[in-house]
């Protein structure tokens, strides 16, 4: 069978079938959100920052499909363009925490020694700092901008990825193929980089998809507090922040629309990530 040709069973299993309707819907939604973010400037019906004060808090109409917010800006356009900021932040967090955390975890698991004990010490410290708290601490010092919260959350998420990679490497190190390569004269680094890392990658990547959802929650929460993303930048969390006072006066639409989009996006990323994690681990639920 072709199975013998598949070098990395983990990655192959990512594409395997047995797809439930919830998974398919979620994967579709993730695709849709990413496409909207990429094409935002071309599909947004209005400029997201154009202010029509006379039109403020208008109900949905043919011109403004999702209505207008309290500052007279088109909600749909802000939603579409805001997809960029709202996805870019979590992407930065996931990329950085995965690369750095993965590297630390692999080295700690493969080599052990001082790096391993340093990792477990700093992990305890970072685990005590919830991501959102560290992000608030960083933004209150460094002011607005996306960089400070992304760095803070990357640091907060790093130990989780590192711990996962470390435990996977420890399990992988004991497997016969590693010994076989060593006997054939491959160097330790070579075996680690060319065989162990590709073998653990699917599990780590599946976890990262779930982390994307958490990072989105944390960053949106920060924007909701008015921290992080600068005031005029369209961003989903920021839209909820801007729509807060309109809710009190009975015009909830401009805040509720981004709320629903945040929920759907996070749920979609979580479902896809957990599905992949189950697949690569060979679990059934």
């Amino acid at each position, binding site marked *: 069978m072709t199975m013998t040709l598949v070098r990395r069973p983990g990655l192959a299993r990512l594409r395997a079938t047995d797809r439930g309707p919830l998974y398919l819907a979620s994967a579709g939604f993730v695709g849709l959100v990413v496409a909207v973010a990429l094409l935002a400037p071309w599909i947004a019906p209005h400029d997201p920052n154009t202010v029509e004060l006379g039109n403020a808090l208008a109900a949905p109409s043919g011109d403004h499909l999702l209505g207008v917010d309290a500052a007279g800006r088109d909600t749909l356009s802000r939603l579409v363009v805001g997809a960029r900021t709202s996805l870019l932040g979590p992407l930065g967090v996931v990329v950085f925490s995965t690369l750095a955390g993965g590297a630390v975890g692999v080295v700690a698991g493969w080599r052990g020694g001082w790096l391993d004990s340093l990792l477990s010490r700093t992990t305890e410290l970072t685990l005590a*700092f*919830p991501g959102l*708290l560290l992000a608030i601490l960083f933004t209150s*010092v*460094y002011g607005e901008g996306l960089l400070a919260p992304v760095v803070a959350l990357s640091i907060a998420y790093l130990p989780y990825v590192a711990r996962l990679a470390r435990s996977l490497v420890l399990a992988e190190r004991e497997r016969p193929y590693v010994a076989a390569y060593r006997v054939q004269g491959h160097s330790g680094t070579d075996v680690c980089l060319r065989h162990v890392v590709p073998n653990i990658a699917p599990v780590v990547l599946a976890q990262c998809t779930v982390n994307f*959802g958490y990072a989105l929650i944390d960053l*949106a929460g920060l924007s909701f*507090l008015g*921290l992080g993303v600068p005031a005029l930048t369209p961003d989903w969390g920021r839209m909820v922040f801007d729509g807060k006072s309109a809710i*009190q006066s009975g015009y909830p639409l401009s805040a509720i629309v981004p709320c629903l989009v945040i929920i759907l996006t996070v749920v979609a990323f979580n479902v896809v990530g957990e599905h992949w994690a189950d697949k690569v681990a060979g679990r059934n639920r």
Partner: protein
Amino acid sequence: MNFVRFAVRRLLEMAATLLGASFVVFGAMYLAPGNPASFLLGGRSASPAALAAIDRQYHLNDPFIEQYARWLGNILHGDFGRSIEYRTDVSHLLSSRLPTTLLLVGMALVVVVLLGLALGWAGAVRGGATDSAILVGTTFAIGTPAFVAAILLQGFLAVELGWFPSSGSGSGDGIAAMLWHLTLPAIALALYLVGMLARVTRSAMLEQLTSEHVAVARSRGIPERHVISRHVFRNALGAVLTTAGLIVSSLLVCTVLVETAFSVGGVGQLLELSSTTKDFPVVQAISLIIVALFMTVNLIIDLLLPVVDPRITLGTRATG
């Protein structure tokens, strides 16, 4: 390892981690860009004399390690410094706001524990359509950030339907008014954790349900409800308890979102206000308190685990 030695070792570890945390919290401010005195003033301009006074008051010309040692020493004496924004002691600010937040967190904790355990139990025991509904429900609960839940509850139940007050904590009008005002914030705070706890409980109980000791118990004719409560749930409790630290720290941190959404005058709202106004002594104090509470809960759980599950010997649980 005997209990006292284990407790002492864990206490020392906790002290070391807290020291590290305090270093991070203090160092973050020290590394802040710009002149610390103008930073403390939050960008407001001040006369050279005022700047010199601030330098003296906060000992800004001393070496870093001396400043850190003084700051830490004061905190150990219960002195968290003075708020720049409110011009009063941070400990005074905190103590006036702490009861509201503790009540809110306590209410949310009750919801999380009761609803989370019940849903997880029902999902594992009932199976079928109930289980599927609970799985989908918890998936959405986990995907709903606390501030989104707060805004949606406020928009529909408070403003549209008028069933609940839409803002404020009702403090000053007696305990009943406070409970009434804090109902929606507590639900918003609890939602994510209800989903998470239900998931953990469900999978821990499912694992027990397929184990041999349960089959033996059933074959001996023990009534099913006793099998579930005394054999399945009791054994699943260990796994459930390990999430307690995460639950408490998540509740504490997310009060910042929920209290801001509902304008509840608690510690969370204070954290939001002080981080937007760069009132750093307040941010430092609240961060440190949250970290310390989280570690205290984890310590208690570590000491309690062997009582709940005698198979676990002290200190052998995988951390986290």
